């Protein structure tokens, strides 16, 4: 039997506010354990929560960006469960009245656009951190610095069918929250994390199968790999005549397998009820209009602008806008007069490769936009060839030196002097008379050999176009 996967993602974005969701404690990372705590986030009796205005603004911004309806009277609810990282024994979240509902985003997979529904976006607070490796092996240790940090949970419709779509969706959400500046998007630090709900059903079947939830997916690659592994696992279980158990599974990125974490609690087990400490979150429609007007240019709009303004392919444009910092870098190079298409190639191929190999971000990169613009100018005016430019680029990437300086220091200037090149060509013909005879006897494939010799003799500095022309002239017809 053939099965079809049905996938929905729950993404948690930690908001980059200065203070927590319901108290004024700092959200900064790296303080001593329990330093950033107060009676509210410690859950001490009598302490009352107080909503962070900016967190609500951020939720509205993301809701608008993802085409959601903004609910003007949303409500906080208590989600009750017992775990030591949750000092109140409930998490303040939203349940039946989240702040945003019924949105969508478009993703691109294999050149096709697919619309993925957003069921809801709700506000909630993060839990603390548990440490199991302390002095006493028979104890766990709790740090509540993170407890109460504002989160947005973005829940997708079960519209995703492949791991590739899931990855594209996650990348889209990442670009949205970073473009909006509401979350720094650092997945390794857990600032943006993802749980994947996966089930499979026979092709043609309408009803969903039993789903599992995979947690701990802290990179785009983990999202894709864990989903593929879970689809394979569930298929094996069903083909063996087994049943899927609704459970939470923990993904182990090193082993590339998952294991059962716990049998999942049903929604009713959380005994959600409206939080009596917090009145309804009333939002002025005027505030929503203002937020709509002040939204920055979003990835999709930027992509469309790039394809029109710079005549880029939709693919190149999508690669450039996926990271706002890269898109800005690109436009800074263009503003210095560089060719749009050539710059796109350099940024998406050479620069992306070096950043990836050296695990660097564009902000850390030593080649700044003026350096890349200078390099492209050197190619454009014939000072260096495209091939030599790659050497210069790598050197500049490592040392941060000006491309022009590297060209001078290493003597990489392209040889475009016709007389000098012709002399070299004649030398080569003199040295390789057997090949010349063969070429003139009809072996026209040898032409590449002669040009290769010119490049070799000039250490790659000969102007390739000129070398071609000269050789053709000197050799005569094949």
């Amino acid at each position, binding site marked *: 039997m053939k099965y079809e996967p049905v996938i929905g993602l729950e993404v948690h974005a930690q908001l980059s506010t200065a203070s927590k969701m319901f108290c004024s404690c700092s959200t900064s990372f790296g303080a001593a354990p*329990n330093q950033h705590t107060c009676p509210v986030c410690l859950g001490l009796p009598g302490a009352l929560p107080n909503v962070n205005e900016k967190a609500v603004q951020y939720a509205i911004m993301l809701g608008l960006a993802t085409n959601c309806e903004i609910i003007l009277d949303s409500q906080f609810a208590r989600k009750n469960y017992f775990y030591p990282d949750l000092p109140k024994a409930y998490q303040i979240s939203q349940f039946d009245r989240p702040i945003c509902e019924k949105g969508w985003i478009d993703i691109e997979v294999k050149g096709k656009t697919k619309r993925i529904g957003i069921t809801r976006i709700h506000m909630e607070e993060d839990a603390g951190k548990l440490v199991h490796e302390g002095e006493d092996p028979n104890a766990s240790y709790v740090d509540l610095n993170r407890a109460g940090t504002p989160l947005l949970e973005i829940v997708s419709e079960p519209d995703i069918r492949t791991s590739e779509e899931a990855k594209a969706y996650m990348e889209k959400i990442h670009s949205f929250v970073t473009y909006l500046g509401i979350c720094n998007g650092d997945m390794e630090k857990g600032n943006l994390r993802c749980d994947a709900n996966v089930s499979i059903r026979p092709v043609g079947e309408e009803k969903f199968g039993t789903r599992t939830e995979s947690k701990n997916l802290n990179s785009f690659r983990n999202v894709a790999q864990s989903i593929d592994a879970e689809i394979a696992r569930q298929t094996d279980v069903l083909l063996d005549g087994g049943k899927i158990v609704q459970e939470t599974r923990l993904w182990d990125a090193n082993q590339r397998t998952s294991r059962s*974490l716990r049998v999942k609690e049903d929604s009713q087990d959380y005994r959600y009820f409206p939080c009596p400490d917090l009145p309804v979150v009333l939002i002025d429609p005027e505030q929503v209009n203002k937020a709509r007007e002040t939204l920055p240019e979003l990835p999709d709009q930027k992509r469309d602008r790039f394809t029109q303004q710079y005549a880029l392919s939709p693919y190149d444009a999508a690669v450039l806008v996926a990271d706002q910092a890269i898109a800005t870098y690109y436009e800074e190079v263009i503003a210095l007069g560089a060719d749009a298409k050539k710059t796109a190639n350099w940024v998406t191929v050479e620069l992306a490769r070096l950043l990836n190999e050296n695990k660097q971000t564009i902000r850390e990169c030593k080649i700044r936009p003026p350096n890349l613009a200078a390099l492209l100018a050197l190619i454009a005016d014939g000072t260096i060839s495209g091939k030599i430019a790659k050497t210069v680029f790598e050197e500049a990437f490592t040392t941060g030196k000006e491309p022009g300086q590297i060209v001078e220091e290493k003597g990489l200037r392209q040889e475009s002097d016709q007389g000098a090149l012709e002399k070299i060509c004649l030398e080569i013909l003199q040295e390789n008379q057997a090949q010349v005879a063969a070429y003139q006897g009809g072996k026209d494939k040898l032409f590449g050999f002669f040009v290769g010799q010119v490049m070799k003799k000039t250490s790659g500095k000969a102007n390739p176009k000129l070398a071609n022309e000269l050789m053709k002239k000197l050799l005569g017809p094949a």
Partner: protein
Amino acid sequence: MTDKIDVKKVARLARLNLTPEEEKDYTEKFQQVLGYVDQIAEVVIEGELSTKDESLQQLYRPDQAIDSSVHPKDFSPYLENQFFKVPPIIE
């Protein structure tokens, strides 16, 4: 109208181990609580009942980090190296 409560399940959610006597005791107590709910459900009301009180205005707080004047180290006897020490949690 109230279903019989599954005390075992509630205990599991609360991560409590109950003795058979405790189970019996809690079953009775829970049934009493649910009995009160049944009593409330019998009240006849007119119009729609709202769970939200819109007369209360949400007071927002500007996003400003202010250090608390109260810290666990000033009052908690459960700290070790500034962490709260709790019974082991192994999933």
